[in-house]
């Protein structure tokens, strides 16, 4: 009996001993996560600058680094580049075939959304935690505004979230452009108050771009006219310090698996021909003289040298000086493309977000479309033609507008504005200048019909407030 008592006592003692630790078990479960911060810590004023920098970093990412980068795969829909990527889903975009389940769609949309959402969120925190006129607000507000502009130019549709919830309204591009305006204005207000003149100009150029896309030529002219400093340039910056700071276009144009090439629509010569020298007379669009195969072993790739929108632009030409091109310089490219005078995109190549020339182009297009300004536009056109080593012309009306568009395309080559331009002209009835016919890769067949990027499948799956399109194969607008 005594053994039974001991057994019983032992049993209950064990139970009590086991249950005891339950009382103090929470400490055992505490673990560290020193590599991230919880959102509840973002209101720490010591972190605000890092949050502002997050907006800057995201803009740099979406500009050149992401798989859906504006200056790379988001540009596949235009006539500026042909791709040598062997990711089929990305390659299809270069054929203007877009599917919301694949390719760069997700990367582009998520990258642009981060710029907008972060810009708005950090602005709100600054206004609450710092000062309503904290100088950093100018940066976050203007970048948020540019996020809207890029979305309007790239996406067929958009939806925007608040801090608490995903959005529930799908917006068209004009509605998206409208969203940008108050943010630019807020940026101007704060930048003016804090003496940040570069951001003031940046915002004015952004507004001009926005109004132009909205067909509001009067305001376009008004805003573009605010930028009077020919030396004004605002750069998206990169550095060769580490991978996360590289200009993403570097990898696209270097190494055995390079993917970027000049399309026949901009090539200075006959596509497929080797040793294109004498025909490369426009310094704004210089490229390798010989094509090479890249990642997919199929596309003939003439790698572009840096144009006007890039910090390494040299203004030189491969074509030598001649009677027909006295301004040509006969530069001999270094075989690597990394030592000048003509440079491929480098790890630290900066890219323009806006500059005086862009304001001028917006100004003159608005003037052209307003009418009655042919002479001024013609002068501007000839100024640009001179940069391209082309003789002056005297044009009016549609022919002048054609030439203005050509000069715009050359001045902005590979700078991330072409898609917005093509869409605007098509939407406004100016003309459809998207590439058509057969792709240079005969095996790929003809171009498709897409002119913009749809919302990706992930947005529909993650956002319960919106419904997917009835037929995702049909572009929902221009």
């Amino acid at each position, binding site marked *: 009996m005594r053994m039974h008592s001991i*057994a019983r006592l032992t049993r209950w003692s064990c139970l009590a001993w086991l249950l005891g630790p339950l009382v103090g078990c929470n400490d*055992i479960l505490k673990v560290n996560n020193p590599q991230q911060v919880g959102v509840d810590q973002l209101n720490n004023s010591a972190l605000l600058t890092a949050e502002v920098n997050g907006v800057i970093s995201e803009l740099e990412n979406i500009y050149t680094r992401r798989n859906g980068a504006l200056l790379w795969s988001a540009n596949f829909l235009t006539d500026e580049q042909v791709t040598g990527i062997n990711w089929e889903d990305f390659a299809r975009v270069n054929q203007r075939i877009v599917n919301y389940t694949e390719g760069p769609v997700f990367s582009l949309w998520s990258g642009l959304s981060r710029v907008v959402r972060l810009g708005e969120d950090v602005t709100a925190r600054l206004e609450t935690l710092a000062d309503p006129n904290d100088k950093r607000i100018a940066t976050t507000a203007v970048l948020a505004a540019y996020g809207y502009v890029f979305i309007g130019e790239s996406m067929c549709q958009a939806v925007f979230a608040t801090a608490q919830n995903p959005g529930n309204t799908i917006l068209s591009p004009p509605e998206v452009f409208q969203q940008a305006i108050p943010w630019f204005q807020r940026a101007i207000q704060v930048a003016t108050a804090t003496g940040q003149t570069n951001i003031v100009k940046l915002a004015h150029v952004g507004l001009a771009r926005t109004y132009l896309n909205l067909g509001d030529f009067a305001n376009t002219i008004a805003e573009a006219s605010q930028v009077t400093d020919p030396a004004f340039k605002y750069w998206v910056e990169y550095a060769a310090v580490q991978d996360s700071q590289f200009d993403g276009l570097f990898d696209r144009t270097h190494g055995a*698996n390079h993917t970027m090439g000049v399309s026949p629509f901009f090539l200075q010569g006959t596509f497929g021909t080797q040793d294109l020298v004498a025909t490369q007379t426009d310094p704004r669009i210089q490229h390798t003289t010989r094509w090479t195969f890249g990642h997919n072993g199929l596309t003939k790739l003439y790698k572009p040298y840096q144009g006007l929108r890039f910090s390494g632009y040299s203004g030189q030409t491969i074509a030598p000086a001649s009677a027909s091109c006295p301004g040509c310089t006969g530069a001999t490219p270094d075989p690597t493309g990394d030592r000048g005078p003509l440079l491929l995109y480098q790890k630290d190549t900066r890219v323009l977000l806006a500059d005086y020339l862009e304001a001028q182009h917006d100004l003159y297009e608005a003037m052209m479309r307003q009418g009655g300004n042919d002479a001024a536009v013609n002068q501007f056109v000839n100024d640009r033609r001179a940069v391209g080593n082309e003789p002056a012309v005297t044009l009016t009306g549609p022919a002048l507008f054609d030439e203005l568009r050509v000069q715009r395309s050359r001045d902005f080559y590979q700078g991330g504005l072409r898609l917005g331009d093509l869409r605007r002209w098509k939407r406004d009835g100016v003309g459809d200048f998207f590439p058509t016919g057969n792709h240079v890769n005969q095996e790929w067949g003809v171009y498709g019909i897409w002119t913009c990027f749809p919302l990706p499948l992930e947005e529909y799956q993650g956002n319960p407030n919106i419904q997917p399109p009835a037929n995702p194969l049909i572009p929902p607008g221009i």
Partner: protein
Amino acid sequence: MPFSFTGRAWGAMGASTLLFILATAPPLEAQVGGTIRGTITEESTQRPLASVRVVLIGVGRETRTGEDGRFEVPGLPDGEYTVRATLIGYTSRTARATVTAGEVADLAIALLRAPIQLEALIVTGTAGTTEKREIGNAISSPDLSKVPAGTTQNVQEQLQSRVPGLTLMQNSGLVGTGSNVQIRGAGSLNANYGPVYYVDGIRFEAQPVSTGGVTNATVQYSSPLDFIDPDDVEKIEVIKGPAASTLYGADAAGGVIQIITKKGTREGSQWTASVGYSSSEWTAGIPINYYQCNAARIRNPGTYPGCANPGAITWMSQDGPVTGIPESDITRFGDSLFVIKDNPLARDPHALRAGPGAEARLSGRGGNPTFNYFLSFNQLNEDGIFFNNYQNRTGGRANFEVTPTAKLNIGLNLSYTRVHERLPLSDNASNGLLRNAFRGKARATADRWDAGYFGFGPDQSNEFDLQSFEERTTLGLTANFNPFPWLENRLILGMDKYDRRDQTFFRIDSTFKWGATEGTGEMTQRLPVTHTWTADYSGSVRARLSQTLGSRTSAGVQVNSRQFHRYTGFGSGMVTNNLTTLQPGSFTQLQVDEQLIEQTSLGMYLQEQLAWRERLYATAALRIDDNSAFGSEFHTVKYPKFSLSYVLSDEAFFHVPHVDELKLRFAWGEAGNAPAPFTADRTFAPATGTAGDATINALTPKSYGNPDLKPERGREYEAGFDASLFRGALGIEFTYYNKRTVDALMEVPDAPSTSFDSTHLINVGEIANRGLELLVTASPVRNSKVSWDLALTAATHHNELVSFGGSVNQLQFGAFTNSQRHREGYPLGGFWAVDVIRDASGQPVLDANGRVQVDLTCSWPDPVDPNGYGGSCHEKYVGPSSPTREFGLSNTVTLFGNLRLFANLDYKGGHYLVCAICSIRNRINTNTWEVANPQADPIQVQVWGSQQTVTHIMPADFLKLREVAVSYIVPPSWGGPFRASRWSITLSGRNLWLATRYKGTGDPEVSFNSNPNTFDRTDYASVPQPRRLSATITVLF
């Protein structure tokens, strides 16, 4: 630094040696008293049985029989003794002996074969050590004794096709790569659906490991199970689902695999040495490349020199460079139309090789009643079929057991293993050998590197230098303290430390063929260190409630803690190839990264078992868990369990002819699957940017999180029986299981508009699995000259995604073809195929340009039929991606006691695999016969070259002759000069024969995506399992 344990390892080895010396010194009491001596044989054949455990009950003395079946226990005081003989696969027998001082008591014991071992002691999934007869769930333990030496080189191969319900698919035939393991189907979408692993009660990190991302690379995951030498394994216990794994809590819904290593003996000693050699070869079919040379291509020598002038092409053959494509490789259809064929992997001696291997092992076990030991050393060097693939493993194990009193037993287990392996680029890698060989254009086009390769040839691809240097140290302490006969206590403390250094090195290369940055010279060092700690206490109290009713009350606490800490250093712009340490001055650019993940789980359980007349056992248990990965709004989780076991054959009324033993069993239980660490939290993470020409520190969105996150709950019942028939000649274990996962963790995309662009987990889904498992062991022939044993394992699996919980309609994925879906009412990861649009007669419908059309609108529910996928949808369900049926058949024939023949067949079927490389070869490279043949129907050529997937999703059923071995046990007289008690020679082969309907690239078992928890089953130039031939000599001392 990862190698700081080297000194400690050597110290441990030295201590082991000293202890060994002490252990083999005969105890003083052996010199006086009486002796029990005997012979143990198999009843039906009278053959002597080796390694039989002979225990003197109540005395604390035990020994094992030698190869001749004899045993001896000297130094016994006068008296009566009960001797019990136990051997796996046989019914235990007892005999009595009377000992007188100075005299020998002889015993002869014959054991009857028992294919089901109800007395077997089970430690997995139980509260303390429990006999199998008491357990209501199925426990599988593959009979490793039947697997001849040298046939398996790692634990993965030991598990393959030997456990019903355990599906193991090796993702690649590369040396050192891992496997995808499921037990009873995939019970989870987004938590880890594989089992958890324990080694001697210590939690063991065993999920395949990524060696890290490399630019333009696909590198298969490596397998941590390779750290365990299969010869160190005594037993593997597999418990398969929530009904059995309740006591492991919020981690174990996918089952538990416990590896039990060999231990010492209490009398005598025995040493085993073996050496072996092997050779591996690619024997699966290699696709042939074809390329059509038509008039346009013949006129374009710049792009198609092989078409314009085949005689001028220089290519690599087995005999060296050859100029001119031979006529035998050209099929002509006219003056300006011909097709070139090529097989670069078969003709190029730089591409593949026969990979040699060598291994050596030495192990010993012995001891005395107070102290015993098991020591082992192993060395394996294996070269793969790729020139830059190999694995070298060196390791040792020391298991000690001290029994200072009859009430206390302490075991110490130590193992240390080093692995050095090199993995090539494989599968889809842009610069990988297979991708470029399979996509080559038959020497017809202007190939940049070597003729016939799409990109890199073998000389370039084999330069890829990714090496892993790994150390694994496992330390465990197990203490059993039974102060009273009715009170058992077991404490397990242990640590598993896994250090790696993954190094990727690109030499300075002025051609920049590997990339612009790589060409400047690049070094990446990734140093992940994973610590896993285990603390496990269980206590049991036994009581007799009445004459017929016994009670065992158990309780326990388990703490498992895991820390993953990885440092990564990267440098580019090398000064010289000789300065490779990541330090300023050696590189122009240096950067570092660090990652830290911690997770801890705490669980407690209480269990009550009632035993009625030692034949009917009812067990109920409750486990309570908490985990650091649970959301802040979620606290503990409770898992109940109930089981019944009834040894019906012990009843007096049981008189079924030919049935020796019959146990009926039933189990119901719940277990969990915890989410990954920190997935519940919404977080931002550091990033960098550039502003004002300076680096800026930034914070950007990282994880969307979910504060309500909780573990999945797996709920299962199983029922079955274990039977032994015809005096042990036939054994059957049968189980039906039905498992349901609720609150399944579902990974849903973050809406990118929120600025989070990854995925987060929600608990909404429901997944069902059910199936049958069968193990049949038989000895159709058993006499003194010939014995034939066979083991058949069979299983069926039915898996279904019951519900998404309304969160989404479907999830689609699948590398390259996007052809897999998670869709309600279908198996997880099922395949859906798209065909070209056809008319009523089945002919393709052409568009205005005369092109076939592929309708991809079924990426979303059909607007006509949103709940189904019929109507105007052109997508149709093909089948599951995981096997739904499998069997394994092992046969062992022993002739005259010396010659043993062994074979193992492995079948898996009912599933599908997409040959993405087939699709790409047709569409992009146009190098298959289907599209290159100029006489083919042009419309059909278009079909092959379109985005249809119906022809590329193929049945992946296979039947493999997985293992064959011939062993000859040399007669003892031959072993005399070497003092060996026995030695044997084994010739074995692995993956010798394959039958399959799969027409892709050779082996339907492989997959390019080796993430252990993926459903993505894609063949993109994946390396098939090679044929391996081995020869092994084993010597026993």
